[in-house]
């Protein structure tokens, strides 16, 4: 993918977003409020009662802090690709981009990059507020292990997001993938509570969500300093998701673009 084009998209998104600077401040204030809310909820809970949290050797607050900080990647992956395509269709800029010698795959991926960068900044701010205001310790963090998990998480989740964008490309609204994943991931993936406390019949579903492995791996890497080899089960699971979902999403997206070109609806919304 040509780097100059990728940077042009990131710069453009930054310039547009930063022109609404007040929104930045409010979103970061929102993070502080959210972190504080979970901190005080955690005061009500006795971690001794949550066996799976005890397994991490931490209290509920650091547990949920990692969950809410990194669940943002899920939300971004689910909505960035389809949301951006729809936004550019509505504003009429998609057609102008499509006339340039730029592949549609480059356009859709680059359009979403700023959202991933912003999500990463937000994740850092979550951790920063947690550390500064609520004394969560990240001294044991294993950065290479966390990065490996994070990259695999972004790739696997992005593939689901691209599948979702394929639906938007063809049907314009109401893609079932985004709806299904958004509705169920918070419940099944261990964002707010460990999946181990779910009844077995429900817990089975959590194994089909990449976010389950992502959050478990990230908690181990960030809070307990697990090395890459200790995280191999989660890394392997995420790699399997990537191997299946990346080609599938590219195939579906290519098909969706062709269908939209035949129906003449590529730039309609």
């Amino acid at each position, binding site marked *: 993918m*040509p780097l*100059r*084009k990728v*940077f*042009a*998209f990131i*710069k*453009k998104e930054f*310039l*547009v977003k930063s*022109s*609404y600077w007040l929104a930045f401040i409010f979103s970061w204030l929102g993070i502080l409020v959210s972190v504080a809310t979970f901190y005080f909820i955690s005061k009500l809970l006795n971690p001794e009662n949550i066996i799976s949290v005890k397994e991490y050797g931490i209290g509920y607050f650091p547990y949920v802090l990692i969950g809410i900080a990194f669940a943002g990647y899920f939300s971004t992956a689910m909505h960035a690709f389809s949301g951006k395509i729809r936004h550019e269709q509505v*504003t*009429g*800029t998609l*057609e*102008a*981009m*499509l*006339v*340039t*010698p*730029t*592949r549609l795959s480059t356009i859709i991926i680059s359009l979403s990059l700023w959202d991933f960068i912003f999500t990463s900044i937000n994740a850092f701010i979550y951790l920063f507020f947690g550390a500064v205001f609520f004394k969560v310790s990240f001294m044991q963090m294993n950065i290479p292990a966390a990065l490996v998990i994070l990259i695999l998480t972004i790739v696997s989740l992005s593939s689901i997001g691209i599948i979702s964008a394929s639906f938007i490309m063809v049907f314009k609204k109401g893609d079932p993938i985004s709806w299904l994943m958004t509705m169920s991931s918070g419940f099944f993936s261990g964002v707010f509570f460990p999946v181990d406390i779910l009844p077995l019949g429900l817990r089975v579903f959590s194994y089909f969500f990449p976010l389950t492995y992502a959050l478990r791996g990230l908690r181990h890497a960030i809070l307990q300093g697990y090395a890459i080899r200790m995280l191999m089960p989660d890394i392997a699971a995420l790699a399997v998701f990537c191997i299946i979902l990346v080609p599938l999403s590219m195939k579906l997206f290519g098909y969706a673009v*062709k269908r939209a*070109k*035949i*129906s*003449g609806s*590529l*730039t309609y919304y």
Partner: protein
Amino acid sequence: MDCTIKVTGLTKQFFPSRGIYTALLHPLEKPRPILAIDDITFEVKKGEFIYLVGPNGAGKTTLIKIMSVAVLPTSGRAMVNGYDVVKDESRVKASIGLISGDERSFYWRLTMRQNLDFFAALYNLSAVQARIKIEELANFLDITSYLDRRFQECSTGIKQRLAIARALLNNPSVLFMDEPTKSLDPLTARNLRDFIKDRLVREQKKTVVFVTHNLSEVEDFADRIVIMYQGRIKACGTIPDLRQTINSPQASLEELYGKIINSNSDAVA
């Protein structure tokens, strides 16, 4: 003279999408296709300024979209600069510019320069090339003093000049203009048409296909006109030739247009 655009037997059918209510009520009923382009054949020579005219729904925009590779044809062939619009998509894109009368296709919160810089990257211009080209085009189009203004702060005439600047970033030899004057006042529209004819066609030898349904602007500018009606080409030729074919050398453009649209035969002249 070289042939820049060659369209042979081009047909485009659209299948209208059905709402879920209709689909449930009549599950076996196939939607009736809409014939937007019906077996069109024509050529445009290098350096020609041709007008594509016809009433709303005649198929003008669909034809432009096929030639600028945003829509795939159902059958037939369209060649632009010697490249097939289906098989050589990226080469066609690299050699054309598309200008529409739609103001929305820019980022309103960015400056004119930032907008051009973004699209220059999509046209594979390096940062240095982009800077030089933007200055050059701004001089050429007399918009230098507006370059650092936000797009939303500029008048419609200046915005339309920016649209031309964007389409010229890659120095294309063919320009497709889809009703670029539709939201301009008569004087600004006239100046824009003068500019297109004098500077782009006469001076820079660009081939221009200009879509409009406003006949008043055709006579002084067109080398040839193509009259479309219900997806077909009803007539193609110079205005004097077309007057000859309907045996009315003194006919006004409105009379000429009316006679051709209402005639039973196609491709007069």
